[in-house]
């Protein structure tokens, strides 16, 4: 076990992936010589050289299309989109090309590309640099979507995403980059599609992912003091997501809360709720409660952003509502 930062774990995973497979390349705005806008790719240019680690122009749409073409021609490209808010510019390459190629070409080929993108608030970056738009991607057949919450999974999901034969979107919460945690020695890949029980409990199931997992754990600690034992599930993967683990937990607790930083309406939580309201209906003893951002863009001012992002108090209130 070594203690590293979340961003450092991703850096190590990228480095290990580039070392392990010469087909892996890394492309993005300022990822090479400058070492990445958040420093996540620092040192990789020096280690792997200008052919494999490349700075790209401010051309997100072409960058994503280039990844598709490179993946179809024997490489395994990793691209970085500087802020998830700019995923708006690559939706065509992701959705109409990367996600569909395998299916629409009759299974002839795969598209082994990976896209890294930071999401979320916490640094007062305002309405166009703080969004959580993962629900869009999870709605697209052919894409995989993961979102780590811990240092170990930041490493593990990054490694898994690179070796995966399909397009995988790795969403990193930018407020986690500096968080410290333990990395197993040697570090291992985290399987895509499986959730993790971050805390066991019998009274209520709290499903979460990414930057909201530590918040959910803080809420669970609060609730434990009040005698309520929450089972906190860290989804890890949003597409495919681990329905079986969530249903198993609900079968135990009979209460379900889902929390994420994305806007609540039409977010990832809606799908989790909908599946449990179908396949898990008979196990439910109370309403399914979601905690997410209110229906507005992320505001800039500290006073507003702090209020906008879900916190432990909101989760506690939701749990109380669900078990009342």
């Amino acid at each position, binding site marked *: 076990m070594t203690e590293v930062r979340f961003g450092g774990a991703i850096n190590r995973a990228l480095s290990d992936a580039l070392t*392990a497979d010469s*087909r892996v*390349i890394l492309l993005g705005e300022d990822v090479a010589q400058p070492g990445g806008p958040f420093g996540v790719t620092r040192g990789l240019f020096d280690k792997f050289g200008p*052919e*494999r680690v490349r700075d*790209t*122009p401010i*051309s997100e*749409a*072409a*960058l*994503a*299309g*280039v*990844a*598709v*073409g*490179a*993946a*179809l*021609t*024997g*490489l395994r*490209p990793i691209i970085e989109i500087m802020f998830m808010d700019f995923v708006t510019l690559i939706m*065509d*390459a992701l959705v*109409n*090309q990367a996600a569909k*190629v*395998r*299916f*629409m*070409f*009759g*299974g*002839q*080929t*795969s598209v082994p590309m990976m896209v890294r993108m930071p999401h979320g608030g916490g640094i007062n970056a305002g309405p166009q640099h703080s969004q959580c738009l993962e629900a869009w991607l999870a709605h697209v*057949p*052919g894409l*995989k979507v993961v979102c780590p919450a811990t240092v170990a999974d930041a490493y593990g999901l990054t*490694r*898994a995403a690179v*070796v*995966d*034969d*399909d397009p995988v979107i790795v969403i990193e919460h930018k407020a986690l980059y500096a968080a410290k945690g333990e990395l197993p020695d*040697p*570090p*291992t*890949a*985290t*399987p*895509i599609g499986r959730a993790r029980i971050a805390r066991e409990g019998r009274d209520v199931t709290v499903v979460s992912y990414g930057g909201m997992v530590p918040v959910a754990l803080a809420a669970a600690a609060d609730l434990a003091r009040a005698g309520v034992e929450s089972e906190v599930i860290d989804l890890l993967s949003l597409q495919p997501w681990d329905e079986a683990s969530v249903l198993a937990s609900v079968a135990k607790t009979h209460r379900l809360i889902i929390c994420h930083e994305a806007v609540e309406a039409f977010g990832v939580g809606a799908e989790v709720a909908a599946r449990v309201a179908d396949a898990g209906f008979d196990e439910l003893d109370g309403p399914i409660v979601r905690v997410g951002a209110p229906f507005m863009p992320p505001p800039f001012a500290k006073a507003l952003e702090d209020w906008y992002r879900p916190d432990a108090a909101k989760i506690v209130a939701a749990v109380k509502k669900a078990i009342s």
Partner: protein
Amino acid sequence: MGSTDAPSTTYQLLDLYRAMRRVRETEERLAALFADGEIPGFIHLAIGQEAVSVGIAAALDEHDTLASNHRGHGHAIAKGLDLDRFFLELFGRRDGHCRGRGGSMHVADLSMGMLGANGIVGAGLPIAVGSALAHKLRGTGHIAAVFFGDGALGEGVVHESFNLAQLWKLPVLFVCENNGWSEFTETARLIATDPQRMAAAYQMRTCKVDGNDVVAVAAAARTEVAQVRAGEGPCLIECQTKRVRGHFEGDPQKYRDAGDIAVAAHDDPLLRCEAQLIAVGTAQRTIDEIKTETKIRVDAAVANARAGAQPAPLDAFADVYSPEREPVS
């Protein structure tokens, strides 16, 4: 179709003619099949534009990669795709190139370097650029080519792709098939620049060729492909041609002068090639034999496709994602 010599020998000219005839026969058959309701969906024919796909493909090697667009039958067939599987795909049959999931706008055969037709205008360009990057980094010695229409110059990603290709000096051949139309509107009413000016803006090598003269296209392609392959960076070839039919089958072309259609139909690249063949001493009988052979081949492919099995939904499910692999550490 790989060829490095001049196409001026009778033998090579016959190859080009045979390829064009195959594309033409295929597309005329598709027109009839669509009219009869046998083939569904959107069918964009490139009748009258065969010299472009055939002339360019003649300069490519089998493992050069090719990205195409919505009007891609000629590109696919010239690149060497199997006619049986092609028709099976257009009929939506199980054994088509794409197992019936793609149809006309998505014909692809990765084993032939054909990275797919594409229903999104402009989307093929960055794919070709990425493919060229892979060729360069992997040292394959191959190049990537991409066909796009004059209307595609409206799409931003096309410009982003020009920049990337030139910036990184990638082995990519941009082929602009300039037929003057963007669907139902003349491109001149939509685009305030042209391929030559765009290439100049990036100081990219470029040339302009009569796209209805297969010899001219093949010659230009041979010269440019050699440079691209030699690592001289990308090149844009503009092929001036004419769209003979509607934007898609079923388009009554009310927006278009009858005269314009007649002019387009009159400047037939196949007839021009036939005249060239005769001029170099080919017997009319040889030409007629090619026509007959081609017709027989297409007849067979159509019959085979008609009899093809239907695709099964559960097979489709299996291809949304790749088969699972063991995670590595």
